[in-house]
Every structure is written in structure tokens, then in C-alpha cells.
């Protein structure tokens, strides 16, 4: 009995030691950012402890956009659930659908026609350009330059128009189907995409000229928010955030899906793991995406755009985890099927959630002027964090 009390006392002491401010200065300021704040990228909130301009500790609070998508999945058929997947990371809806569809197809052991695979790749890469274009604009706003935002969105508009030609929607598409895509490539898509890519490459050079080489921008971002390669892996970061730290890891290369291995492209990698590297990785990724789209357009196979699938989709009982390279990082779908037309359980692994976990680790001992930049360099989308 006495031993137990003693143990309890020790535990209490330990907990209070953790909760104490520790080596904080006595007069730190606690300030609340969000959920409505110009640069928290949606409804994200965190409480920061500040010593003057320096951040001592941040406590991220998420959940303001929780819609229970994973639970909804259990009450919907596989086809009915598909439009909801678009709402995860709404800047990269095509990639979300990509992940969900190939996960279900793998579960059903369904073979997707080559043409559908190529169209899917085109869509996903167009969407990646869109998403990174948003990142570019937001990054501009974060360091206080307004022009990149409008430049980025002007370019994104045309890419969205291209996807509208395919799917009819601009942000949430519902274009992929289990076994292919909803409709074939329309007339004029080929020519317009070619023209867009030509213009896009020119614009990208202009962005670099305006922004990437800007003395103040480099000063603001170089050496800020450094994540070492080891730490990035330990925090299970992925996508451009991980590659900015120097790890060559792209799921499109590591576990090629939908014929990504057929195209000739490179994985851009950073060196120092600072904000500037993550920025450059994304900018270079846009160029690589354009390269992939060009090749996919050139070698678009003839044939069907949709495999023959039963009306009611009933994957055999079993479970699967499949991941794709989303616009923000590794996007994984864990689907458990019990043989009925509804999934038994759906777990979605979104990259932004893991990136936000590391926020305290990265923001600590930086200035508050750096917090929008570092948060922006993760390119979080709250829709995918809260699900």
C-alpha cells in the first residue's frame, strides 16, 4: 500500500514537472492564432507562447473542419463515397480520387485500361500544378508580396479550365470511376493542353525571376524552419516537405502506379531542409509535372476509358492499404471490405496531419514573423487534416 502511494507521488511530480514552463522566462505572452487568421490556411488554430517576438512553444489545435468523412464511408456504397474523397484535400481533388480508386481496384483485382491510366496521370499532374500554384501564391502572401498570388491564380485558372473540359467541375471533380474515368478526352483538349504547357513553362521562368531570386525572399526563407533529413523521416513527413530535406522519396518512383514508370522525369530534391528548399522543390515539381503531362499526351493509347465493372461494386472480403503521391505528400487509403457493397472501415492517411504534428518542433525558437512562412511551406490544407 505504502509503495503504491509513493509511486503515485512520483508520477504526480513528474507530470507537474512537464507542465511547468521550465526554462521559460517569467513574463512570456500567450497569444491565440486562429481559427480565423489570415495565414493559417483555413480553420487552424494554435496557441503560441511568445517571448517578445520569439516563439517558445506552440500548441496546435485542429478539428474545426471535422466532417467525419471516414465514418460516413461506412454508410455509403463504394461509388457513393467517391465524391466525398474530393473534399479531403480540395486543392488536389484528382489525386484524392486517384488514391481511393486504385485502392478499391486493387481490392477487386480490377485491371484498368491503359488509356484510362494515362488520362488519370494527366489529370493528377494537372491538379498537382494547380495545387502548387496555390502554394506559390500563398507563399507570396505569407512573406508580404501580393503579386505572386495573382500570378499563380491566373495560371491555375487555365489549368482548372482544362480539367473542367474533362470533368465539368473546377474544384471537386468526381471524374475518376472505379475502373477508369467517367468520360473520354474531349475534342480540343489535346491542343489546348499543349498550348497551356507552353505558356506555363514561360510563366514559370517569370515566377522564378520575380520571386525565387528576390533578395528579400531569400533572406526571409533561407535557413528558416530547418528540418534535417533524419527528423523529417522521424516525423513521418512526406511529399515535397520530406524531399525538401534531402530525402529522395517519391511514391510515383518508389511504388509506381498507373504507369508512372513509363514516363521520363526526375524527383526534385532540396539540400538544407529549410523553407526555401521546400519552396524550390515545389516549383521544380511543377516543371516535372508539365514534363509528365507532355509525355502522357504524346503517347495516349487507343482504347477504352473504362473497364467493365459490375453495377454494384462488391469487393471480396479483405483489406488493403494503398498510397499515392498526393499534392502534399503520401496519401494513403486503408480499406477494409467485408464483401458487401459498403466498406467496413475506411482509414485515410493524409500528409498534412503529420506535418502539423511537427509544428512545435519546427516553430520553436523562431520569430513570429516566420510562423506563416514555415506553416505555408508545409502547404497544409485543413480539409485533409480534419477529414
Amino acid at each position, binding site marked *: 500500500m505504502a509503495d503504491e502511494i509513493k509511486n503515485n507521488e512520483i508520477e504526480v511530480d513528474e507530470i507537474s514537472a512537464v507542465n511547468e514552463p521550465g526554462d521559460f522566462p517569467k513574463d512570456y*505572452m500567450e*497569444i491565440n492564432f486562429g481559427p480565423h*487568421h*489570415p*495565414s493559417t490556411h483555413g480553420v487552424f488554430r494554435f496557441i503560441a507562447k511568445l517571448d517578445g*517576438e520569439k516563439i517558445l512553444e506552440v500548441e496546435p489545435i485542429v478539428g474545426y473542419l471535422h466532417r467525419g468523412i471516414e465514418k460516413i464511408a461506412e454508410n455509403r456504397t463504394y461509388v457513393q463515397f467517391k465524391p466525398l474523397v474530393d473534399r479531403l484535400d480540395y486543392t488536389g481533388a484528382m489525386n484524392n480520387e486517384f488514391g481511393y480508386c486504385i485502392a478499391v481496384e486493387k481490392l477487386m483485382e480490377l485491371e484498368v485500361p491503359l488509356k484510362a491510366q494515362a488520362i488519370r496521370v494527366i489529370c493528377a499532374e494537372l491538379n498537382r500544378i494547380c495545387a502548387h500554384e496555390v502554394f506559390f501564391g500563398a507563399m*507570396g*502572401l*505569407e*512573406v*508580404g*508580396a*501580393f*503579386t505572386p498570388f*495573382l*500570378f499563380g491564380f*491566373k495560371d491555375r485558372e487555365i489549368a482548372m479550365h482544362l480539367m473542367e473540359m474533362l470533368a465539368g467541375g473546377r474544384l471537386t471533380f468526381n471524374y475518376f470511376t472505379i475502373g477508369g474515368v467517367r468520360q473520354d478526352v474531349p475534342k480540343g483538349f489535346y491542343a489546348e493542353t499543349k498550348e497551356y504547357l507552353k505558356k506555363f513553362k514561360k510563366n514559370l521562368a517569370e515566377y522564378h525571376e*520575380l*520571386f525565387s531570386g*528576390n533578395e*528579400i*525572399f531569400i*533572406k*526571409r526563407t533561407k535557413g528558416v524552419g530547418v528540418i534535417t533529413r533524419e527528423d523529417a523521416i522521424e516525423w513521418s513527413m512526406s511529399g515535397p516537405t520530406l524531399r525538401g530535406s534531402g530525402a529522395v522519396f517519391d511514391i510515383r518512383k518508389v511504388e509506381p502506379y498507373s504507369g508512372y514508370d513509363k514516363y521520363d522525369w526526375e524527383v526534385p530534391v532540396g539540400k538544407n531542409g529549410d523553407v526555401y528548399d521546400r519552396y524550390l522543390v515545389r516549383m521544380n515539381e511543377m516543371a516535372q509535372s508539365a514534363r509528365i503531362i507532355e509525355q502522357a499526351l504524346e503517347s495516349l493509347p487507343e482504347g477504352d476509358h473504362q473497364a467493365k465493372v459490375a453495377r454494384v461494386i462488391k469487393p471480396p472480403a479483405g483489406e488493403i492499404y494503398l498510397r499515392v503521391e498526393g499534392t502534399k505528400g503520401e496519401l494513403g487509403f486503408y480499406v477494409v471490405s467485408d464483401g458487401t457493397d459498403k466498406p467496413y472501415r475506411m482509414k485515410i492517411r493524409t500528409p498534412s496531419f503529420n506535418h502539423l504534428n511537427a509544428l512545435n518542433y519546427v516553430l520553436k525558437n523562431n*520569430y*513570429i*514573423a*516566420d*510562423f*506563416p512562412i514555415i506553416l505555408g511551406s508545409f502547404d497544409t490544407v485543413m480539409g485533409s487534416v480534419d477529414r
Partner: protein
Amino acid sequence: MVWWLALLWALLKLIIAFLFIFLTALILIYMLRKVMGHMQYRMGPRHHGPHGIWQTVFDALKLLGKEDIIPNGIDKYVYLFAPVIAFVPSLTIFAFLPFAPKVAASNFEISLFFIFAILGFSTISLLMAGWGSNNKYSLIGGIRGAAQLISYEIPLVLSTMGVVIMAGSLNLTDIVNAQVKIWYIIPQIVGFFLFFTCGLAEINHTPFDIPEAESEIVSGFNTEYSGFRFAAFFLAEFVNLFIICALAVLLFFGGWKPFTNPIAGTICFIAKTYVLIFISMWVRSTFPRFRLDQFMDFGWKFMLPLSLVNIFVTAVVVLIVDKIR
């Protein structure tokens, strides 16, 4: 002059200055929207009047007609007077700006010195707004404004000393009149760049809009202000932009030269000022923002030594030239 006539005359000057300030601010806001718009592949305001010229007028009316929201827990007098303190210096400075020979509210012997003395006041309004608003974002913005002040104010004043040495006067009219053979931009190019950079910092213009950094501290010192109190801050900001550019024209670009006629001189002076304003708007749509510590580094370790060197070199050269003559 009879005393009441003098009073009436002073009142008339005040009204003219007021009208001029409001008109300038409206034009500058419209110009900013158009210039930035066209630099960003968009049109700017289009709807009210031809090319949207009434847009800013309506915006100003809307701001003046808004409810006066006073948040709870404020330091009342500090909060209420901050916009006044922001606006009055901008108005006062117009008393000392010569637009052309004889077109000036007063011809003051140490007008340059006095203008700098008054310009510094606008930072007090930032501090007051930051402290009085009972908002942490505002507080950080106000403190940032004060921290920024001490790092640009000294190089700002020192950068003009080269001109003062060359002209031998602190009177702005005399300084312009001294630029007979050559505008001071050529011998004082370093001084001009220092002055313009610090001037942009003075008015919280884009590479240095640290006190109201939108992405970090929402809107900085004016977060809690709305309606006409916000309008006072907004107007003061644009009037200060005009003042800094006008000062640069007077000190470095020969003011109303080559004209000596009051009307032609005024037009020439305002035209030159608007060219500089255009450049500042260009800067605004190109550059990102500095971080506070980087700006202080820049101010103390680069601009201050450079301005001191500039003064030294100017003084030595002026001395040598005088000796030769």
C-alpha cells in the same frame, strides 16, 4: 495686418490644405489600385464612373458612414486619440512644404528640421493604438513600430545632411534654389537611396510594412479600428507617402525647377512627386516584407554607417571645393 484678417487668412490656408490632403489621398488610393492592378494582370476598379474613378470616393464615404465601434477594455483616451495623433502631423507638415516660389503656407528657416521632428510623431500614434486597443496583435504591431522607428529615423535624418551641407541651409526653399546648376540627385545619389529607403520605412511602406504585417499579426496596430478612425490611419498613410516623395523631390530633384512661375512650378513639382510615388507603388507590388530583426540589422549595420560616410565625404569635398575657389 489686422489680427482677424490674419486669422481668416490662416483659416483659409488650413481649409485649402485639408482639401488638398483629402484629394491627394483619394487620388493616391485610386492610383495604387490601378497601378498594382495592371502590374498583376488585372484591371483594378472598373465600375463606378469611367475606369472606376469614383470607387475611392465611395469607399471613403462608406468608411465615414460606418458605425463607430469601440471595443471593451480599451484604454479609452489613448485609443480615441491615436488616429488624431496619426493624422495631425501629416496635416501640419503641409504648412512647411513649398510647392513653388511663393506657393507655401509658410517660409520657415529650419523647415527641414521641423518636418523631421513632426514626422516622428506618427510613430507615437502607432504605439498609442497598439497599447490602447487591448489586443495582443495590436500591441505587437505598436511595439514593432517603435522598434522600427529607432532603426530608420537616424539614417533618415542623416541622409539629408549631405544636401544640407551642399546647400548651406535648412530652409527647403533655399535648398531648391541652390540646385541651379545640377540637381542634388547626382552628387548625392547615395543620400537619395538612403532617404528613399528610410522614407518607405517611415510610412510603413511595403518592404518595411512590419508594424501591420497582415500575414503575421492580422493588421497590426489598427486591428481594432474601424469606420472613420481607421480612415484617419489610412489617410495619414497615403498623405505621408506623398510627403516623403515630395521631400525627395525638393531635396534631390530640384523641386519646381526648371520653372520659376508659381503655377508652372507647382505643376512641375507635383508631377515629379507623382513619378516617385509611382516608383514606390512599383516597389510595393514587387517586394516581399523584411523581418523585423533583419530590418534592424539593415538599419544599424548598413544604412547608419553609410549615411555617416556620406556626410563625411560630402563635407570634405565641399571644404576642398571652397578652398580652391
